[in-house]
Structures are given as structure tokens and as C-alpha cells.
């Protein structure tokens, strides 16, 4: 994402080179430099390469890794457990997506990022395996939606009590569903996000909201103005992920949307 926020060509080229050099032998990207395990950032890296029009065999290796990766509940034994003895969290274990890291269950945000990356990369020539994995991931997102719309990390009802949605998770899940047929879940979630956006004061949540609403052709100018006011000169932003997403949101509509999925 930092790469997408850069404009001078030389910086952009060296950032891209860094990105390619960080790919692991199995096609995945680690969560940070120095780590040796593939992680949820693989989908972000793949999206970046695709939208910056860099064709690279790195994409094919990343896709292969993404198609093979799944939440632990994708294993039959865990599916059986969640269907029979462990029913405290309401979800359908047959509908699984992607974990944050290998060995854990599926969650909303890594599933949404993986869906976006696979959709973007395979838009011109999608094979059956990719389509099947996309459909399963989309079903997982719908299954994990909160009762009144929106998403949180992925637990909609725990011990019979509905949990509330989160702004970032809702915005990112909606990004993954932008090209899907509109339904009640999407409409309720959009409505919730629009209403919640009016009071969000955090830069990261507001930036993700802008990027998401834009793909649904919702007005974003006022939200961009508020984001610019909140961040001021940017010196209070302490992490690169927030800085990158803020830059992308402020320039949303002026440049290629990094999470846009073509139909």
C-alpha cells in the first residue's frame, strides 16, 4: 500500500523491487521483513503488483499460495467439531475463507483482501479453481455478517448474543463484494457504514470507509475533507499502514483505485 501511495517514479521502482525481493519461496509474503512465514499480506502484495501493471511470475506463485491457503475450519475434523460439539459461535464451518496466518481460522479481513486480490488478478482469465475459491470466500463473508449489517472480525453471534460491526472490517468486506450482486446484506451494511462514517474520528477507519464507499458510487468529498482535517500535517500518524491508506483515501477518485475490482 505504501508503494501505491508513492508518486515519484524512482521511489516507486525501488519500493517495487523491495516488494518482489520480499516474496518467499512458496509464493507468499511475510507479515513483515525478517519473518519467514507466509501471511495475510500476500493478498495486499498481489493487489499492488496487479494494479501497478507489473506483470510478474511472482503473481502466479502468489495466486497458487492463496488458492491453497484456508482457515483451519476448512479441515473436515474441525468442521465436524464446529457442527456438533462447539456451537457457541454461530457460523457455518462449510463456508471458510482465509486466516491471518497459517494454522488459524478464517476471518473477515484476510478473506476480503484475498478475494480482492484473486478477483483482480484473474479478471481476464479466471480458471475454475479460482472461481470456486472466490465463491466459497464470498459465501463465508455473507455467513459472518452481523445481524443488522456490517462485519466485525468474524464473530456475528456468540453465546446467542449478536455482536456489533466494526468500521474497518465492514469497509474492507464491502470492497470485496463490490462486484457481487447487491443483496440485503450489502444494502444494510452500506447503510450502516454511511451512518457510522458521519461520526468516525479515526484516520484509518475513515480512510477505509472512503475507499469502500467510492466503489459503490457514494459521495466521498466531505469524508475526504474531514480526513484531511483530522490528520493535519500527518505528524501524529505513527504507523505506515495508516499513513498509506490515508494517502490512498485522500487521492481516491484522482488515481487508480487500488482495491477496485472490474466486472
Amino acid at each position: 500500500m505504501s508503494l501505491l501511495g508513492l508518486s515519484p517514479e524512482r521511489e516507486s521502482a525501488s519500493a517495487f523491487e523491495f516488494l518482489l525481493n520480499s516474496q518467499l519461496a512458496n509464493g507468499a509474503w511475510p507479515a513483515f521483513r525478517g519473518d519467514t512465514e507466509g501471511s495475510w499480506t500476500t493478498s495486499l502484495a498481489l493487489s499492488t503488483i496487479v494494479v501497478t501493471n507489473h506483470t510478474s511470475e511472482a503473481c502466479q506463485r502468489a495466486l497458487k499460495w492463496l488458492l491453497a491457503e484456508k482457515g483451519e475450519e476448512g479441515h473436515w475434523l474441525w468442521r465436524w467439531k464446529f457442527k456438533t460439539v462447539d456451537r457457541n459461535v454461530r457460523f457455518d464451518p462449510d463456508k471458510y475463507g482465509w486466516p491471518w496466518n497459517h494454522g488459524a481460522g478464517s476471518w473477515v479481513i484476510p478473506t476480503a483482501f484475498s478475494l480482492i486480490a484473486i478477483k483482480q488478478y484473474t479478471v481476464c482469465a479466471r480458471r475454475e479453481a479460482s472461481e470456486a475459491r472466490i465463491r466459497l470466500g464470498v459465501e463465508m463473508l455473507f455467513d459472518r455478517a452481523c445481524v443488522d449489517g456490517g462485519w466485525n472480525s468474524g464473530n456475528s453471534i456468540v453465546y446467542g448474543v449478536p455482536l456489533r460491526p466494526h468500521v474497518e472490517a465492514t469497509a474492507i468486506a464491502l470492497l470485496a463484494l463490490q462486484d457481487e450482486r447487491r443483496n440485503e446484506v450489502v444494502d444494510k451494511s452500506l447503510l450502516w457504514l454511511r451512518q457510522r462514517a458521519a461520526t468516525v474520528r479515526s484516520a484509518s477507519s475513515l480512510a477505509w470507509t472512503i475507499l469502500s464507499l467510492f466503489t459503490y458510487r457514494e459521495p466521498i468529498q466531505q469524508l475526504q475533507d474531514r480526513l484531511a482535517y483530522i490528520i493535519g500535517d500527518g505528524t501524529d500518524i505513527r504507523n505506515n499502514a495508516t499513513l498509506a491508506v490515508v494517502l490512498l483515501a485522500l487521492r481516491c477518485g484522482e488515481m487508480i483505485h487500488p482495491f477496485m475490482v472490474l466486472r
Partner: protein
Amino acid sequence: MSINRRRALGAAAAAAATVGVEARTLWPQHTVDYRRAQSRVAVLNAEAYSEGLEETVFRGLRLFRINVRGMRVLLKPNLVEDLPEPVNTNPVLVGATARCFLRLGARQVVVGEGPGHQRDTELVVEAAGLRPMLREKQIEFVDLNRDELRRVRLKARYSGLGELWLPRGVLASDFVVSMPKIKTHHWAGVTLSLKNMFGIVPGMKYGWPKNLLHWHGIHESILDICATVPIHFVIADGIIAMEGNGPLQGTPRELGKIVLADDPVAADATCARLMGFDPLQVRHLSDGSRFLGNPRADRIAMLAEPLGTRIRPFAVLPEFQYLVAQ
């Protein structure tokens, strides 16, 4: 089943149990032992989150005669969601504690947290009301979900994780203060100073929630994390606690107490008793008693208020009814 088969199975079970006990002795699950001969706990009365809290905490800290002069002190509150009281450790208590440690000569006081549910830490910090306090007192906040990381070999083997990536902001601290909100927890039974340390595990690597820890066992992961990053002191927020379906959807319970301790197991055992629970029914406390600290009342010196005998147990989900002391 024939008698012979029953006998054979019984003998096999007994042998397995014996081997298990022997294995634990020969190959212990932990490589550290933080237990003291006598742990110290102070239960302080505090009716509200008010200005006077600083003096209450300061008086409490002086009972322990702790020396933090020249140290970097990390305050680790429990910040979970952008929800109102009593989900998060109250910012007034965090601010009062920060000022107390500075008064005691700490070189630097840092507040650090890596929320496990909400990916947007800023949103949680704002909603918890912590931002004005941090700004006013120029206290640094470290987002432990996105800090620089170092790979660390775990000092216990309960979870089987072997190692974890942990934030530099935690590892570079001289004195770690766990500041939990006293709450029931729908997976762990209770969330107190030991469970609070889940927040030092970085979301950047392990996600939101830090689900790998759940797959490897919540109690087991708590034990491994607390063996590796020792808690030096506990200040638990029980002024308004949470009962029922915690840690997010329970109901407020006015307990009117702050619990200070130099031993996290003693602190959590005392909090559990204040909740009307049997601490040894909490698995990470019973297992933690082998190396992290003392849960038994006869190994805990009470420096301030006695616990009292008329305790109305906290409401719990039916699955956790076994926690309630008989």
C-alpha cells in the same frame, strides 16, 4: 466388558497417569519459576474514577516499597473495543498510575496495548478516553499490534508454539505493569492480569483476533506468554467491573476496588475471590501456581483491606458455573 479388560484398561490408565506425572517432573513445562516465598496484595477501596484516585494509587504503591527509579515502566491496560465503560481499563486510573510511577522516579512511563478485536487501535484509544490523558501528561502510547518485532523463544511449553514474535516496546521495558479490567470472559472464565497479556502479542503477525493463540489453547498460551514476559506489578481496575457474558457484552458490576500486587497469580487469585470464584478452578491460575506465582491465601500477605466474607458472586454464563466458590 469383561473384568479382565476392565482391569487392563484401568492398569493402562494408571500407568499413563504415572508416566504423565513423571514426565512433568523430568521434563517440566516451564523453564522459569517466579514464585516468591510470600506475595503481597493490597485491595484498596475506590468508589469512583475521580481526581483522588492518584493519591489512592500512590498510597497503595508505597505499601510495596517498589523501586522503579531510572526505569522504563510499561503500563499495559486492557483496551478491547470502542465501547463504553466497563469494557476497557478506565483512562483515569491509567493516567493516575502513570503519574504515580513518574513520582516514584521512573525514567519513562509508556502505555502500550495491542487490542485483540478492533484492528483500528486509534479508534479504541479515542473511545476509551485515553487520548486527552496521554496528551496532557505527554505519555507515549505504543500500538503493540504494529511495533517493531523480535522473535522470542517461549519460556514454557504449554501451547506448543515454541516461539513468538513480540514487540520491542515490551521487551525493552524494565518494569511491566499489567492493568486489567476485572471481568468475566466467555472463553477463559475470567480476564485479569495474566489474560491481559494477550494484548502484547502483535496483531500485525497474529491477526485480529490473535486466533493462533486460541487454536493452541487460551490457558496454555497465557501461561507461555507470562512465563516469557514476566509481569512485575499489577493494578487491576475493579471500581466498575463486568459480570455475565464478558469481556464485551457483560453487565457493569460496581465493585469499588482496585487491586495492587507484586505477583500476577496472587493478584488474579484475589480478584477471583472478590468475584466470588474459586481461583483454582481457573486453569491458568492453577497451572500458573507451579511457576508464575502464588494463588493460595496463606502465601499472600494482604497489605490493606481484608477481603471480607460477604461476597455476592459475579454472574457467569452457565458454562462457567463451576468457577463459583462453594
